[in-house]
């Protein structure tokens, strides 16, 4: 199903608009336009998720109604909230470390957006397909830690500092299991290229009563899938691993001092990271945009929203672990398990298959 879609989005845009005749400049413009499309798709999803879906989902879990005053299902709250947040006063602490304080929200938000560049979203929406796709997406997602550290340090606030330190400790502890677990998938595919990873999963795993089950790695190696989902929760700092923000302990962690548009950027960045995490999970374990009947792009969006829903579910139901427990789970539990998974997968793939 996906195998045919070899052309990437920038080439398609170039072809459609006749930009390919302008050489390098045309390519650049086409790439920019394509990136603009993908970026906006992601930002639009964040816009729906942040002010509206998050509230509605949490309300459903906690027997409430949530926003329902403006527009159908309260949907226009998105507009109202956007205006409200952007029109608020931007307060910058007296002792803030200026360039770092201003850059931090941008770094957090942009690092997530960069990651979407290599994600195949189906129906030809795929910006770039480098050979090192998987490594690239982890690398840019990891940049967010720098943003959190910058924000935490530059705010000149003790709670922010604590939050920033926690964020770094947590990201280091969970990035390794995350990457190692993803590597166990690479052993199957033999490639870091995202399109290859998706293609490999399109092969039928087994056929039950005429119904072909694809070899999604979530089915092939469910253990790795669970590990990856948990590590991803910690990576994006959601419950039960939301210690960097920990509202009841350190107020709001690294974003305590951020207001107005900077706060929006941080908030946006967090949601983008949840969606990026969902996109990686969908691509690496859930067959990317594959799925019956509906177009690939729709399936892809359904999959990342499913991951989003999962994070909100956990948020409503699971307690937060303490920072030392979090680090212990990371270094003593997840790391060991992920290496065990990697070694076992390597043995099984290398010796048996």
């Amino acid at each position, binding site marked *: 199903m996906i195998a045919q879609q070899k052309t990437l989005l920038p080439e398609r845009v170039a072809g459609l608009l006749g930009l390919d005749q302008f050489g390098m400049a045309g390519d650049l413009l086409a790439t920019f336009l394509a990136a603009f499309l993908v970026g906006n798709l992601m930002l639009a999803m964040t816009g729906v998720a942040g002010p509206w879906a998050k509230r509605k989902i949490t309300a459903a879990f906690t027997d409430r109604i949530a926003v329902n005053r403006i527009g159908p299902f309260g949907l226009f709250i998105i507009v109202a909230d956007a205006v409200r947040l952007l029109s608020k006063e931007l307060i910058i602490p007296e002792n803030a470390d200026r360039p770092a304080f201003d850059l931090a929200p941008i770094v957090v938000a942009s690092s997530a957006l960069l990651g979407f560049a290599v994600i195949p979203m189906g129906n030809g929406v795929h910006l770039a397909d480098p050979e090192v796709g998987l490594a690239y997406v982890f690398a840019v997602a990891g940049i967010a830690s720098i943003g959190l550290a910058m924000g935490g340090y530059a705010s000149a606030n003790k709670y922010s500092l604590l939050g920033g330190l926690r964020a770094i400790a947590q990201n280091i502890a969970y990035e390794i299991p995350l990457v190692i677990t993803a590597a166990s998938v690479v052993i199957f595919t033999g490639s870091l290229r995202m399109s290859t990873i998706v293609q490999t999963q399109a092969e039928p795993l087994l056929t039950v009563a005429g119904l072909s089950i694809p070899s999604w790695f979530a089915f092939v190696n469910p253990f790795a899938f669970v590990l990856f989902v948990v590590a991803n929760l910690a990576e994006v700092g959601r419950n039960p691993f939301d210690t960097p923000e920990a509202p*009841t302990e350190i107020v709001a962690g690294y974003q305590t001092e951020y207001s107005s548009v900077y706060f929006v950027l941080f908030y946006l960045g967090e949601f983008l990271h949840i969606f990026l995490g969902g996109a990686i999970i969908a691509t690496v374990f859930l067959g990317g945009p594959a799925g019956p009947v509906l177009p690939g792009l729709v399936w892809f969006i359904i999959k990342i929203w499913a991951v989003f829903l999962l994070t909100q579910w956990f948020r409503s139901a*699971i307690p937060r672990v303490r920072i030392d427990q979090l680090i212990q789970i990371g270094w003593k539990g997840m790391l060991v398990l992920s290496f065990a998974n990697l070694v076992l997968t390597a043995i099984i793939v290398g010796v048996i298959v």
Partner: protein
Amino acid sequence: MSTQKEELEIAEGGVDYDALEDRLGDTAIDRESHVNAEGFVVRPDEVQDALFALRDDAGFDHLSLVTAQEYEDRYESIYHLKKFDDPTQEVSVVVPTTKDDPVSQSAEPVYRTADWHEREAYDLVGIDYDDHPDLRRILLPETWKGHPLGKDYDQNKPQVVSFKQHANPLKQDHKDAESDTMFVNIGPHHPATHGVLHLETTLDGETVADVEPDIGYLHRCEEQMAQQGTYRHQIMPYPDRWDYSSAGLLNEWAYARAAEDLADLDVPEYAQVIRTMGAELCRIAGHMLAVGTFALDVYGDFTAIFMYAMRDREKVQAVLEDLTGQRMMFNYFRLGGVAWDLPEPREEFFGKTRDFLDDLPEALEEYHDLLTGNEIFQSRCIDTGILEPEVAKQYSATGPVARGSGIDYDLRRDDPYGYYDELDWDVITEDGCDNYSRVLVRMQEVEQSAKVIEQCVDLLEDWPEEERDIQSNVPRTLKPDPDTEIYRSVEAAKGELGIYIRSDGTDEPARFKIRSPCFHNLSVLPEMANGEYIADMIASLGSLDIILGEVDR
């Protein structure tokens, strides 16, 4: 003065006061009779001798309250002692000091809890305590001039409160720049301080090196306001504003019990049953809020448990609203009874109450599934915030906090009032001494309260119509005999809530002192939190279930 008191009825309660007097020997220079217990007058420089003797030889291990007051000719500190094993055994130690030199020996070496009490006495009344480890103001800002409950206090004098940075109390312990600790103000505006509490916290990394609660942000002079109100009607609205977690009826009962015993008023049995039912409904509301906010502290977000707890509290509030006409500030008790009978039609009220009780077991099951059965919750709460029973007793912690440390102490059973001794229910204790035990105690107490309410509803349903007396005959103006003193307490949602009243022959109390359970429970926090992780400190604070309105009064 003392001749008049000897005419009063003395609640002996099994204490052999003569033997105690012999034991105290020359330390006791005089003996007074209060309505609740005998009081021994002790010289201000022999306080510790007297208290050590009473604690170690006579078993008075519970310093329930320290009352300080100013007379025309002297200052006086009264130490109200009880026993954890049998709170009906009471004795008071009265320490008068002269006007010129109001210095009295501190009781802190004997009872740790005297620390905060004597600070409050110093702050509000102006008595100095020798040998006190840290005699600072506690409720008012440190720059305050004068002592508001003293007789010569000028209320119109302008006060200046400076705005200066707090110092790191561990600064001098730093060996070098590398071994740094960080001072951080947790509160008064912080998501986890349950109101306006300020924790002066010193952190060593993620560990709490030192924490000191700074209270007083919600101090509303409740004691003084009560002293300016008449017994009959004007005081009763205030107790609702102490523990405002919808637990108002329990507070009202504390005042009602003290004032009724002081003025020797009877309460009809029917009214006692209604009081008991109302009080236990309030306890459920209070505990629901406690469990919900504790979950909020541990979970970190407004989760399902918080909302479910609020929903169940809402149901109790609806029942209470039908009963009292109010959802939080009930003002339903009257001296000698309650304000009005159950709402008509009675069947509808009983039906609604029973519906709530019928749904409760299922709701509690859900809490246990979501909360106490959750492994992450257990790993967060078991063996954190340890409060050893000995420490709890030293700080006079009561209520679920004490019962979570295995102290079998509940005034509803040990010092019965209302209709409790006629009903079938149990006192819950847990031996874990940790945050988890305190949650378990509260959740099981909700079950027990439901049991009490059910029995009350049964009784009320069958109560013959002609015997439904809601109030006894109470004089229009209550003027208890001058210089009568009483200290009475009830088991409120957070623990032992006591009221000390001294009358002066007018229709207003001369001294009205509140023994707030939250005040004592909060003072334990440093014992539980020092050396623990900051997250555990927040959880411990939540498990203490403090209501700042009651801490600060």
